[in-house]
């Protein structure tokens, strides 16, 4: 019940300020622009969107997701409203979940509004729409992971800029560490790098997103995303509790 009340307040807050509108428009514009430029949408000649569209989502999200969610807890600290939340007869977990789900809904909307490209590939060719759906699901899981990371970081500080910088840095590492170009560079260092390559592939979001955009969502990928999300949200709960003691 309290989770729902906080979820509604947070979601309304996103849409009474320009934040949500800006993110939806910027993400929609940039993801499409990247697909048609460096994604080589026309040259690839593939309607599945596997190579041209989904790989660039994580690159955009690693910056845009922290920009939306950085205020989640840092704003509560700086305005002092954390004191109201802490003295109401609620469990702080419900506030964490309410805020988290509100951010997730904003991003679900941002992803949903990139649908013109799906209509376009269906008009131009005959793609497997389940594969495209799987790609969207992978993108959404990346989003949710980055939101959870930003939630945790924002619980540490009352300064939104610090929350943004640290969250972007963590999300960048998780994205870049799994990029094919980076993996190939490490692989070139010699046969001893095999173990490092395996770790980097599993640690980064990129390989999981690539598999999802091919229509393959493995149990390990789900475990990776849900594990990171759960860990960050539990961590947020612990941080918020420890700050009061």
């Amino acid at each position, binding site marked *: *019940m*309290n989770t729902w*009340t*906080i979820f509604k*307040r947070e979601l309304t*807050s996103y849409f*009474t*300020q320009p934040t949500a509108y800006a993110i939806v428009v910027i993400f929609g514009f940039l993801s499409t622009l990247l697909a048609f430029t460096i994604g080589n949408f026309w040259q690839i000649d593939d309607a599945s969107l596997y190579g041209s569209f989904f790989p660039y989502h994580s690159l955009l999200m690693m910056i845009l997701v922290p920009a939306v969610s950085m205020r989640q807890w840092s704003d509560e600290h700086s*305005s*002092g*409203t*954390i*004191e*109201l939340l*802490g*003295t*109401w*007869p*609620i*469990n702080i977990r419900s506030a964490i979940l309410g805020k988290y789900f509100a951010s997730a809904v904003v991003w679900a909307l941002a992803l949903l509004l990139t649908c013109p490209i799906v209509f376009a590939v269906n008009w131009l060719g005959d793609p497997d729409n389940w594969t495209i759906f799987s790609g969207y699901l992978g993108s959404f899981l990346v989003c949710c992971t980055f939101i959870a990371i930003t939630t945790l970081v924002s619980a540490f500080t009352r300064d939104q800029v610090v929350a943004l910088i640290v969250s972007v840095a963590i999300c960048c590492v998780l994205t870049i560490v799994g990029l094919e170009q980076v993996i190939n560079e490490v692989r070139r260092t010699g046969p001893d790098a095999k173990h490092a390559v395996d770790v980097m592939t599993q640690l980064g979001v990129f390989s999981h997103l690539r598999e999802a955009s091919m229509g393959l969502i493995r149990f390990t990928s789900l475990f990776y995303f849900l594990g990171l999300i759960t860990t960050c949200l539990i961590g947020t709960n612990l941080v918020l509790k420890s700050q*009061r*003691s």
Partner: protein
Amino acid sequence: MIEVTGLTKRFGSKVAVDDLSFSVKKGEVLGFLGPNGAGKSTTMRMVTGFLPVTSGEITICDLSVITNPEAAKKKIGYLPESAPLYNDMTVQGFLKFCASMRSLGGAARQTAVDHAIETCFLENVARQSIGTLSKGYRHRTCLAQALLHDPEVLVLDEPTDGLDPNQKLEVRKLIKNLGKEKAILFSTHILEEVTAACTRAVIVDQGTIVADGTPEKLAAEGGGSLYDLFHKVTTSETNAA
């Protein structure tokens, strides 16, 4: 209604509140006086369940804030020192949100919001965004959220801070009226408020109670003036340094 026994709070090696004990009964308004850094706000934050205690016991209407915080918090209305609010909401929207967080719904929620708006004289700004309010209105909006659920216990941290003289007078009257039916703990720097609104007062210094009694008794102890007693029993910042 409020029972505090042996309350201690340490932040690392610093002792903010040291073995503090007091009680507030129904129909009593207890003024919590003390210089800056005396431990007033820390005590109030522990009484409301926001800060965990290092040791000691706090009960609100016989419910322990330490072992049964959610039930105890239902009995408390709290106005924090800085009157924090969500600036992106309207006054009415904020109060409705707070009422929902207090498990009030439907007609009961609307009645509670309307009553709080009327009690705190917020009719003129009910539909205004909180971000555009003056300090006085912000304070009264935060006071309104503390009254929404008609709590048995009110904890008010400097409730008249930032109000103009007329508003201060109104809030003091309001506290005095509410105090007939509730137990009120309120902190202030303004010594006149103690005689105007309190039935009893304690003076806190460096985390301990250094004076306790009715405003008249305390004034008598100070040789006829509460100011003199306050000056005598508390440590000024220059002395502390």
